[in-house]
């Protein structure tokens, strides 16, 4: 046990060490990259040792909960700075340090020509620190520390090229929309403290049913279940961080940041924290079937809406960004359904293949001299073969094609939608929406590969080239992961290796939440994905366009423009911004100076202190001061006199 305490502490301190060293001592980009990657490699090794240690314990003993020191101790409020390691946080550690290491190494090549590479690596290491704290927290407030910490790093990385207005807008948007989500999460945390008297996971979850069961609070005139209220508030946080309807708008804009940062933060790890949060709080979500259904519905809708939006994008990264929103929708839907293992399974496989796609897209952009518009690309297959093949692997995994990782994990989620749960029943509509979204996924990925790599180059003003090995090697490793990642949780019919992840999670989710594998469903989704993929391929792969063409399907689908703007989702944000500006403007320009201050100055004038007199300076002051003092003195003497007479 003590060994694990030390290992976990070392794990969190390692990336922090990178932050400190690079901030204060390193001025050279490549050195900073090497140091940042070095601490990540060390962190990954430590994670593997932690895994071995954890597996060495009996399954029911795989919970390590300890306090480093007392962070906030204010009267009855006691918040330790403490860590919790269990199978759930373990898999997150593997994802963060594993994929994180590859992305750090890749970044050395990618950021070689950047203006401020040292800052970039500082932010990247700081992000990993915060993310580790988020998943290792043993109480809500430490989780919140990591939660907002990753948000800060996201802000810093999006604004990495802060000279550009796009980056400025996107970074502020990301931070503020996340804060709106955090508002909900914080309120949920406050409610948990009020009712449990503690914030420690180990003390809250076992008593959840007892404390929250049957409790209701009054809200807007009607009673509402306490568990429902808490879950709903928490879900606001999830919607912010994991980019769900209606708070997803920041994520596509966040693509203004460097591509490897998008891979790490806006695809593989940070944006999945919301799913982790629900999985961590499954004991509370289980008490509120109403919220669970709501969460599943929002997830499915997000999956579909974002998948449609991905079809309408011309920017190579925007496609992937909407795709991420869509895939997060799948995970949220699974978590809402109660299929936590399926959600986490997809979180892990997606973390691998979406990181791969982003990094490969980064290699494309890097090789195409910062061109991001797919209409200006085409035929890159010949110029960058390694990038091409790894991209194809990522796309197949994302589209859910057998036997790639995404096939297995997506199938688990679709299966869960049709599964008949004792509390909430079966959700065929959600299932259909998810299958349709999976079909759209195959379509937009086929479209992207066709536009980027096939045909002929439409804008020939630049020469695309393959990236250096330090960038392509991580791609190859991730491509292998995208191929075989499904192995960690194959269905039970494969003897010996089936449900590996599910069995690992059993102590956390108290028993298996596995959904029986349905071959029919698997074949159906696969056929749909293949069909849609073929359709996408046929539409885009065999044509020659000019560099500024209009998407051919815009002729068939009148709603194509809606896809492009993600159904005008940015408009509603603008609506709120206008409202905020108008209110703030009215208060600061009219209400405050003329209303409140007007009253004050008016009152002053009433007692004979005109503005002119005041303006006369010190002589004016002396008179006024004397007068006020006299008034006070008279009042005092008057009181004494009055008291004496009584």
């Amino acid at each position, binding site marked *: 046990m003590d060994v694990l305490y030390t290992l976990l502490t070392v794990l969190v301190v390692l990336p922090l060490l990178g932050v400190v060293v690079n901030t204060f001592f390193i001025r050279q980009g490549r050195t900073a990259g090497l140091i940042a990657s070095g601490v990540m490699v060390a962190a990954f090794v430590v994670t593997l040792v932690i895994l071995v240690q954890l597996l060495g314990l009996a399954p029911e003993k795989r919970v390590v909960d300890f306090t480093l*020191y*007392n*962070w*906030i*101790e*204010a*009267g*009855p*409020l006691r918040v330790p700075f403490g860590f919790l390691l269990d199978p759930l946080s373990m898999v997150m550690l593997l994802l963060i340090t594993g994929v994180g290491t590859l992305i750090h190494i890749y970044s050395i090549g990618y950021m070689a020509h950047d203006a401020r590479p040292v800052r970039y690596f500082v932010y990247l290491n700081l992000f990993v620190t915060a993310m580790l704290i988020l998943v290792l927290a043993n109480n809500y*407030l430490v989780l919140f*520390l990591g*939660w*907002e*910490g990753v948000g*800060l790093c996201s*802000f810093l990385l999006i*604004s990495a090229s*802060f*000279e550009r*207005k796009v980056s*400025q807008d996107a970074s*502020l948007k990301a*931070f*503020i929309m996340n*804060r709106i989500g955090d*508002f909900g999460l*914080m*309120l949920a945390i*406050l*409610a948990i*403290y*009020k009712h449990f008297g503690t914030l420690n996971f180990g003390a809250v979850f076992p008593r959840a049913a007892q404390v929250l069961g049957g409790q209701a*609070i009054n809200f807007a005139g009607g009673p509402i279940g306490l568990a429902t209220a808490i879950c709903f508030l928490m879900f606001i946080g999830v919607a912010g961080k994991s980019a769900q309807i209606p708070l997803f708008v920041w994520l596509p804009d966040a693509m203004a940041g460097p591509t490897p940062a998008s891979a790490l933060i806006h695809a593989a790890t940070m944006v999945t924290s919301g799913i982790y949060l629900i999985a961590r709080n499954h004991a509370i979500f289980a008490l509120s079937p109403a919220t669970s259904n709501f969460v599943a519905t929002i997830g499915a809708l997000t999956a579909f809406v974002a998948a449609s939006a991905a079809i309408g994008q011309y920017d190579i990264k925007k496609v992937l960004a909407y795709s991420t929103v869509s895939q997060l929708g799948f995970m949220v839907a699974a978590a809402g359904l109660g299929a936590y293992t399926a959600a986490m399974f997809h979180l892990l496989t997606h973390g691998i293949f979406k990181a791969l796609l982003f990094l490969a897209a980064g290699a494309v952009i890097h090789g195409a001299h910062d061109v991001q518009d797919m209409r200006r690309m085409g035929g890159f297959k010949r110029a960058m073969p390694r990038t091409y093949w790894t991209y194809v692997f990522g796309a197949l995994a994302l589209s859910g094609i057998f036997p790639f990782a995404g096939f297995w994990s997506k199938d688990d989620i679709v299966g869960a939608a049709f599964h008949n749960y004792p509390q909430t029943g079966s959700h065929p509509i959600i299932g259909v929406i998810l299958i349709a979204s999976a079909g759209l996924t195959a379509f937009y990925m086929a479209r992207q590969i066709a536009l980027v790599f096939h045909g002929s180059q439409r804008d020939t003003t630049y020469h695309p080239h393959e990236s250096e090995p330090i960038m392509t090697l991580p791609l190859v490793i991730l491509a292998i992961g995208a191929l075989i990642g499904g192995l960690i949780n194959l269905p039970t019919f494969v003897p010996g290796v089936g449900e590996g992840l599910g069995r690992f999670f059993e102590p956390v989710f108290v028993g298996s939440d596995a959904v029986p594998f349905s071959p029919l469903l698997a074949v159906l989704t696969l056929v749909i994905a293949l069909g849609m993929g073929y359709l996408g391929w046929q539409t885009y792969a065999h044509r020659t366009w000019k560099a500024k063409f209009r998407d051919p399907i815009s002729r068939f689908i009148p709603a194509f423009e809606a896809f492009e703007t993600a159904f005008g989702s940015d408009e509603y944000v603008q609506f709120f911004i206008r409202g*905020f*500006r108008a209110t*703030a403007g009215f*208060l*600061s*320009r009219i209400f*405050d100076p003329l209303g*409140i*201050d007007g009253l*004050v100055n008016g009152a*002053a004038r009433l007692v004979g*202190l005109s*503005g002119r007199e*005041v*303006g006369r*300076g*010190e002589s*004016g*002051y002396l008179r*006024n*001061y004397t007068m*006020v003092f006299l*008034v*006070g003195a008279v*009042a*005092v003497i008057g*009181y004494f006199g009055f008291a004496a007479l009584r």
Partner: protein
Amino acid sequence: MTSFPLLSLILWLPVVGALLMLLPLSARTVKVVALVASLAVFVVSLLLIPGFGLFNSRIAGLQLTENMAWIPSFGINYRLGIDGISLWLVMLTTFLTPLTILSTFESISTRVRAFEAFMLMLETGMLGVFLAQDLFLFYIFWEFTLVPMYFLIGIWGGQRRIYATVKFFLYTFTGSVFMLLAIIVLGVVYGRSTNGQVNFDLQAVTKAIQTNGLGLSQTTLRWLFVAFFAAFAIKVPMWPFHSWLPDAHTEAPTAGSVILAGVMLKLGAYGFLRFNLPLFPEAARFFAPAIGVLAVIGIIYGALVAFPQKDIKKLVAYSSVSHMGFVVLGIFALTPEGVHGAILQMVNHGLSTGALFLIVGFIYERRHTRDIDAFGGLWKVMPVYSFLSLLIILSSLGLPGLNGFAGEATIMFGTMKSAILGWPFAAFGLTGVILAAVYLLWMFRKVMMGDVNQNTAAMRDLNRTELAILIPLIVLIIGIGLYASPVFRTMDPSIEALVGPGSKLVATR
């Protein structure tokens, strides 16, 4: 009083420094002498840290008390004392003053002697407010703080300094007149209830009023509560009594702004804790919801009005209205968590907002403007400055891991748990945290992000003096943020006695 008068030493040492200003010294020497004097005060005040054994953090009541007859015929005594509630505010004062004086090394060049003398006199005034345990003595110090600040703004201020300083003076002075009345009533009534002799001993009055209400009716006690409240609410300042603050801040010299925001606003919040709560528990409970509403309005209103400001200093000034709203909310949650958070947040606000005024001052000295649109691209030309500014901004917007969060979150826990305030107050208060991110990051974006313009292209980064001023603040901002327990623990017994279970504020609920 048998032991060494440590509190008196801390209290009067700055005045000794101010007297040295009478000597014919050069401007530079005057600054150094003032700095040394204020540093001496700080070093002596370090003895109060519980580890030294002079201040016992297990005791709830007053410690290191001193008592001397002063005007016996009116029952006015020189009584000093310190407890867990005032300890960190005293430390905040002694910590901020030398940093502020250091900031004047480059920014003040006219009438230096007078300036430094006023700064030191101001320190004594503020320390006196925190240390005085006699109602009348408290009032004297309370009013005395106005005088140096009046001149600091009026002589070294900006264009509209006279308007601003007179407004500041009259507004706060008007509030205090009500308090003076209440103080005299208490002294007289208490005297009559004992031996007929007027007595302003705060502890004795508190004790008597808690046992039998001094025979005053509930209505009278509520009126007295209001009289104290008027003085303190203006000082904090609470919405809608805040309009003196933006004017005073915009016109004040940087050092004046730092002290004004850093310490003087806390005098009001401290007054709530020292007078309103213990003297009038029933009235405090009665008025708590109404005050909570004003506090929440202040949080949201201050944040909204801060956002469109073109003058960076005004933006920071309105942010104070918002942040002090949290402090008041925590106090009138009447829960231990709320009060803990409120006291820590007073210290935090002193550090972060003090630092914010300093960083605004630094660029003002370089370009002689505070127009937010005149800047841009500082992240490029002043990387160290921008990095430290970002830290300070993040502290101010309550990022976990920095000091602001430790205070605000604790306040929010207390508000949520409070039987009087509860979740609606917590929910509306929390929206202020979203808004803080909006206006502070907006400022950061306008000033630090973007490309340099002809105004900012040649700006140089922080010099050594400026770094020396900011680093201690940053250390505390991070230190308290990551480890708030030691600060909280020393307050615990005093707060427990004030609002814990079994206290007068809770017992009759």
